[in-house]
């Protein structure tokens, strides 16, 4: 399952990231925020339009907004 398909609420671990789908700067920005392989995340909110774009992730004690296109590059496993 990719992160954009994760329902609101449950926690999941990012098991793999397809960096080729992300722009270099975006990848760096995500990693700086701790959104990387091994991170535990959950989806807290979704936008109204465009099939729930953007998403707000909870990671640790932070909330980070990102686009669905970023979330699609990340494989997650529910825990």
């Amino acid at each position, binding site marked *: 399952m990719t992160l954009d398909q994760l329902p609101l609420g449950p926690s999941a671990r990012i098991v793999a990231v397809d960096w080729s789908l992300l722009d270099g700067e975006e990848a760096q920005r995500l990693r700086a925020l701790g959104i990387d392989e091994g991170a535990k995340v959950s989806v807290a909110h979704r936008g109204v339009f465009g099939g729930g774009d953007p998403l707000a992730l909870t990671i*640790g004690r*932070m909330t980070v*907004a990102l*686009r669905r296109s*970023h979330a699609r590059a990340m494989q997650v496993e529910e825990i």
Partner: protein
Amino acid sequence: MARHRSAALVGNPNAGKSALFNALTGARQKIANYAGVTVERKSGRLVLPSGEPVELTDLPGSYGLDATSPDEEVTRKVILGLHPGEAAPDVLVVVLDASNLEQHLVFALEVIELGKPTVVALNMLDLAERDGLTIDPVALESELGVPVIPTVAVRRKGLAELTQAIAEAEARGPSLRSPHEFMAERRLTAHAIATSAILSETARHRLHARLDRVLLHPWLGPLILFALLFVVFQAVFAGATPFADALQGGVDWLGAQVRALMAPSLARDLITDGILSGVGSVVVFLPQILILFFFILALEASGYMARAAFLMDRMMAGVGLSGRSFIPLLSSFACAIPGIMATRGITDPRDRLTTILIAPMMTCSARLPVYAVIIAAFIPNRALAGGIGLQGLVLFVLYVSGILGAMVVAMVLRASLTKGAASGFIMELPKYQMPRLKDLAIGLYQRAWIFLRRAGTIIFTVAVVLWLLLNVPRAAPGESQVDASIAGHIANGLAVVVKPIGFNRDIALALIPAMAAREVAVSSLATTYAVDAKGDDATARALGSQLKAHWSLPTALAFLAWFVFAPQCFSTIAVTRRETNGWKWPGFMLLYLFALAYIFAGITYWSAVALGL
């Protein structure tokens, strides 16, 4: 002379750096740009316990030393001593958000690794405690190997201790650089340190989650956002009026004083009609700009702004921008100047440039007087079906035309001049906080100062030049001054250019002084048609009937279309020059907006003629 000593605050965005900076330095801050980039350089004076001053700078918030934005690039270069014209700070003060320790430690570790004299400010400890976190600063200190000072910037707690630690760190000097760790290793170290320093923690910030559930709710969220925006705009337009009137009164009073004190002369006219009315016509926007900025700063400090960006991101993505462009564009409905100044919050340089370039198309408040006079004179006050007034409908169409124009231009620019991978939208949503009045006051004071400095320099110069154009050379007896002036001759030339879009020479003449500020077009038309301009309703009616006598309806409609696009505002051009660091982009802005104005005024004119209006 003593050596110039310096310290710098570094840390993640949202670590409470600015509040700490305000608490440490007070209101006397210096704001400038870093050499060669439009990144704000904020510095102030910190007095050490010994009484010696240190220059403290507030470096842009950063997630790490691998820069991805111009702001982060500045932080990296200054810390490493690589920024031209900036000495590396003697002491680095890493500001950590105590309630987000693990994430913030990653950057802290990277900075400490450099071996420079470093102090850690464990900030916002009160919020962490409210959040159910108990942190042991002593454990943190022994793990990090640098002094850790607990602070609550907004309550001025820990400031003396922090100042003392900065002095001691400076005296100690640099230590050895630790071996470089990679990001993944640092993250593990940060996790281990955070785990050992956090004594106990309860469930996560419930208050924030609860607020977000309402404010980011799929349909309640946008509804609240628009209600809030409505309040802001109401305050900007209604609330500013008495202050703007008072300022206008003050400018008029000054003019009257000068007239009473000086003998009639060209110099007197230059002061009253050139400088005072020119600069005055821009300064009257100060109340609006301040009220707008008050709300922007308050929304920013409260953490809501990031939510607004989140809610609007999808719509902005449609034209190749991101949610971060929403607030600057929205501000531009009051005035493009604060709008363009607010684009500094946009991380991606291409997004930012695009936003700056389209901001002038948002219908600013200076267009309203022009629209109001023309609509009242030419559009019958007739109700259409459903109780919608024709006049209101025309005004609405003018607003929408600006927005649509901006959207199309944004799409075109993003596919051509500002082409490149979209920066996407990756943004931390900070915790909600009560904005502090003192921080708001400092921010407002700084914005007001920037605006007034503009008015005092560029706008002053433009006002003088425009006045000279209108008054030199002097008219011979029996000849009208405007016809004899340089501006009159320019208008003759301009009239030929604008004739194809239905403009007469009177309009061409009015467009010249309107470069100072759009609404000046009204008063200069009033002068042309010899209406005694007092700025009241009677003037507007008198001007209206004069306009009807001299203009056809297609001409009036074309004039409205012109004002939707025309960049008739030198202040906007000046602020664009400042924000893009050169004349290239303001030049481009002038050209494309005049081109659009010309084309759309022409289309409007000829369509109206063809329809037999």
